[in-house]
């Protein structure tokens, strides 16, 4: 059942998401192949103008894909579970937990798709632009250099690398579930539900900042007094990781509770 729910979530979201991501990749490719080989007095202004326009489109699409993917994920959650479709969704022989899991997974996939299309788009841009200016080797070296640096850092500072990776995973999950939690809180209001969802999101974010600032100051204080900067920095990173994990778990349970016990379809 979980797989089926995810399937239909993706079917619905991909209707709008795939075209936008597709356009994004195509424009990245175009920006690459229209890249002027050289810019000197011989280059026609037309060529530069064309590339400039395409570049502008690429940047616009970058912003658009980010915003649109967010809207698509939010809309899917809202329409499918809290709108009229909720009357169908919640009469499926499926637990609330399964519904939430499906929305988390499909939301994650949608965002991942947006990110991947960005990587491909700019990747194509870089590769084809360099192909045109004959700097292909330099690109290879450039990326090689980055990967080597990361690998060196990781093996030297294994503990940081682990924390970093875990942080990346937790943060992305946290970002998504925080949105769903805010939507559910807003749903409790009798009026202006969407507005209240935004308010909830802002309030939660403020609370998060306050907590992490307090923790940060504690660590800085201890670090200053005890001159344990290195250890304190690592301890701070670990503590932030733990804090975010706890918050994420809290948001998951909060969202589940509201969805299971405080559903109020109109």
């Amino acid at each position, binding site marked *: *059942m979980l797989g*089926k729910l995810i399937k*239909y979530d993706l079917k*619905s979201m991909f*209707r709008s998401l795939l075209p936008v991501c597709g356009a994004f990749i195509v424009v990245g490719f175009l920006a690459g192949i229209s890249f002027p080989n050289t810019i000197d007095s011989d280059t026609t202004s037309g060529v530069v103008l064309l590339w400039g326009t395409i570049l502008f489109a690429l940047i616009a699409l970058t912003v658009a894909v980010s915003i649109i993917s967010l809207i698509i994920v939010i809309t899917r959650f809202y329409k*499918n579970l809290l709108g*009229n*479709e*909720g*009357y*169908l969704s*919640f*009469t*499926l*022989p*499926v*637990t609330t937990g399964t519904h939430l899991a499906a929305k988390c997974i499909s939301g994650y996939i949608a965002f991942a798709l947006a990110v991947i299309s960005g990587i491909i788009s700019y990747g194509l841009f870089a590769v084809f632009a360099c192909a045109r200016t004959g700097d292909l080797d330099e690109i290879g070296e450039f990326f090689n250099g980055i990967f080597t640096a990361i690998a060196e850092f990781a093996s030297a500072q294994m503990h940081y690398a682990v924390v970093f990776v875990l942080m990346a995973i937790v943060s992305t999950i946290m970002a998504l579930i925080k949105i769903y939690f805010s939507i559910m809180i807003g749903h409790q209001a009798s009026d202006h539900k969407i507005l209240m969802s935004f308010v909830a999101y802002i309030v939660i974010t403020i609370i998060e900042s306050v907590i992490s600032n307090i923790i940060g100051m504690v660590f800085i204080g201890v670090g200053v007094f005890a001159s344990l900067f290195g250890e304190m920095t690592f301890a701070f990173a670990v503590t932030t990781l733990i804090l975010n994990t706890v918050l994420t778990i809290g948001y998951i349970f909060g969202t589940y509770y509201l969805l299971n*016990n405080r*559903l*109020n*379809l109109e």
Partner: protein
Amino acid sequence: MALLELRQVSKRYGNKSALDCVDLQLEEGRIVGLLGPNGSGKTTLIKLANGLLRTSNGAILIDGKEPSPETKSIVSYLPDKDSLPDWMKVDDIINYYVDFFADFDVDRAKEMLGSLNIDSKMKLGKMSKGTREKVRLILAMARKSKIYFLDEPIAGVDPAARDYILKTIISNYEPNALVIISTHLIADVENVLDEAVFLREGHVVLHQNVQELIEEKGKSLDGYFREVFAC
């Protein structure tokens, strides 16, 4: 054993009671009318039975169990809201039902769509409201469930479609199923009902066999309803 049972069920919103200490038992093999004015608690009762709301007090039991995925697989719900996704075609929503409901009878659904001349390749969002209602009803009736909740099944359709819908409800009748129809249009459905349940302000004020009631009161169910709920 009653197929649908409410034991001292209450549902409160703030200090307002949508349902107040309701006891009700409905047996299989019946077509029951859930009747009452707006705000009487009909929709709340149906939502509770479908697991869309939690009781404030008391227990609601479907075939002896509390609402859960297990009960949802034997309950077919036709809400009075337009609950189907706009972007799907009829074929798509049929596949959706096949995917999730083991008791869905595809052939029956296609047969009904055919006799109402509904194009299965059409997008739901592009259909008229009346046609969408028919599709929703067909999907709900094509399931071989134990309990059917039909919330205003004939309110939004033309008279010819109404006849078809009532005939479908009759022909779908199974001795081990329970059909609950909630509606304002009592005169149109009363010949199809075995029993009537009158709800007023969250209380059950009547639960009786319709033929007995007509014999007792000497008037139609619709007529008696108007008498009981006269403003």
